[in-house]
């Protein structure tokens, strides 16, 4: 990489507080600073309830921070309106969920096409890209199946294909292997590794150290603060309380 590109993700003193109807506040994130450069593979770990998903939802532009700034590719997204955020989600981010989140009545290929539909691509282009993405996750031949007719691991691969079709700069995955056995988990994580090798920036939330090991960099969150940010191999569980 020659010319200095802006980081894919840059957050500065990011706060998130949930406001309840009853008037109580739940402060969850207490000022996070984080930079992720293009081509990185980052795992985010932390105990349950530490705010990982809250952070991921903000990174995925599904939610807005209460305070602080968030830049994607150098563009400030934390002040964008709903339509602009929808475009960012559609074009800049590929999101993979723990529960796959496929449309259960629609075929594998239809599910893969939905992001392209909201991008406004023509049918022919949609077909071409969908076939390519499905080939990438080794699902060629399953195009017309329904999600209920394939295994969980395959469903997650459909979700990854769907996340890839609009060529986003960033792949985000919140516990993508949480619903999968260890063998399928490995398959899914190998796909993320391959994608990272091809140049995609990948951020994965997990609470399994085995899964985190696929990443190069680890960010450890506890009580809404970053407690560790560095090489995966140098992180010792329990050492950072």
């Amino acid at each position, binding site marked *: 990489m020659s010319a200095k590109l802006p980081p894919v993700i840059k957050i500065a003193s990011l706060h998130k507080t949930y406001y309840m109807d009853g008037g109580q506040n739940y402060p969850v994130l207490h000022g996070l600073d984080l930079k992720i450069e293009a081509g990185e593979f980052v795992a985010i770990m932390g105990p349950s309830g530490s705010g990982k998903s809250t952070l991921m939802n903000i990174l*995925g532009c*599904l939610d807005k921070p209460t305070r602080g700034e968030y830049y994607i590719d150098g563009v400030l997204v934390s002040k964008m309106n*709903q339509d602009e955020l929808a*475009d960012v989600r559609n074009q800049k981010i590929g*999101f993979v969920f723990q529960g796959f989140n496929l*449309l259960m009545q629609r075929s594998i290929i239809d599910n893969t096409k*939905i992001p392209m*539909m909201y991008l406004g691509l023509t049918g022919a282009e949609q077909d071409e890209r969908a076939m390519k993405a499905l080939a990438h996750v080794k699902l060629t031949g399953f195009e017309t199946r329904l999600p209920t007719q394939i295994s969980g691991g395959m469903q997650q691969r459909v979700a990854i294909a769907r996340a890839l079709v609009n060529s986003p700069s960033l792949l985000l995955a919140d516990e993508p292997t949480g619903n999968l056995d260890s063998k399928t988990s490995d398959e899914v994580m190998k796909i993320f590794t391959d994608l990272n090798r091809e140049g995609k920036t990948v951020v994965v939330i997990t609470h399994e150290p085995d899964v985190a090991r696929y990443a190069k960099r680890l960010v450890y969150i506890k009580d809404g603060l970053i407690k560790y940010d560095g090489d995966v191999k140098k992180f010792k569980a329990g050492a950072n309380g």
Partner: protein
Amino acid sequence: MDRRIVIARAVASEAWISIKANKLRSFLTTLGIIIGVCAVVIMVAAGQTVQNMINQQLSGIGANLLIIRPEFTTQGGLRGGTQSIIRTNDADAIRNVRNIIAVSPMVMTTRQIAYKSQNFATQLIASTTDVAKTGNYEIESGRFFDERDMRGAVPVVVIGSTIQQELFHGADPVGEVIRIGNVPFTVKGLLKTKGQGIGGQDQDAVVLMPITTFRRRIFGTRIPNRVQMIMAQVSDERFIEEAKLQIEVVLRETRRLKPDAENDFIIDNMTEMLNTIRSVGLYLSVLLASIAGISLVVGSIGIMNMMLVSVSERTREIGIRKAIGAKNSSILMQFLLESILISFIGSMVGMVLGIGLGQIAGAVMGYAVPISYMTVLLAVAVAIVVGVAAGIVPAMKATRLDPIEALRYQ
């Protein structure tokens, strides 16, 4: 191509896919609109048929007519006893009133008429040439009797199409000679067919002749110059009331009524009566259509209900779509189009069904049921209005869903 058009088309096809995915539910919902639109279309057609029938029957009467007829004379403040007498000279007096363009004193009686061996009993009307205007008679062939016939009391008649059928079996009667009693009359003209009158009577079973001819050659009334009524036609609807007042003044003068005496004649404003009859017809159609409209309202509530159910069932789908980049406008459009498509299909099917049933019913009952472009416009308008009205609330509900909340929904 514009990106937004491509997206809009894709969103429309998503709407269509979800309609197809729930075939039974979509069909039942559509049925509500089909029934509603069908009912409205039939009722509108029924109303129009009734109005057409009324108009056709009223067409037998000339426009802007005032009818002058006798009143029962008052005796000691009580009505009853003898009828006053209207005479030809009353008609002559009315002729001078401003804005009066035709005056026809009318003698009406029933007579047996004969042609060769054929006999037929029919209404005989004796009047002036103006009766062509006041009675709205048009000539099919030959001519109407004219002023010269009037002056010379020439034995000529003009006959209606029923007489042509009965006496001449449809052949051209002009120039033929018929007999009334023993008197021969030459048929001068044949009238255009009018059809049934308001009371259902045959308006074409009629023989017209000059009143002078009637007096000289038939003489049916005990009192010379007596007529049953006078029809007076006003040039324009605006002048009717004024003309009515003028006629009253003129008649009181001709009839030498004392200033404190009540009128011994009645002047009816036919236009007023016709308008009343027509408006009854119109109110009837509106009433029928409104009642049918209720079923349409029920049908659209059905769509709204289905859409609300659909939105809550598909909360998660909406969350997924938003999470992968659907704008609020795309979500709104998807659900609104779903509702509009259902109501559109329902309206079109209902319209075709309604028109078809109307035609069948008309054919069975022997009425000409009109198919109006209004019906088509109405169905299209209903499709859009109902679709939007029933779909907007559910679609807004879908649009407002927070993607994170929606994704959590099981």
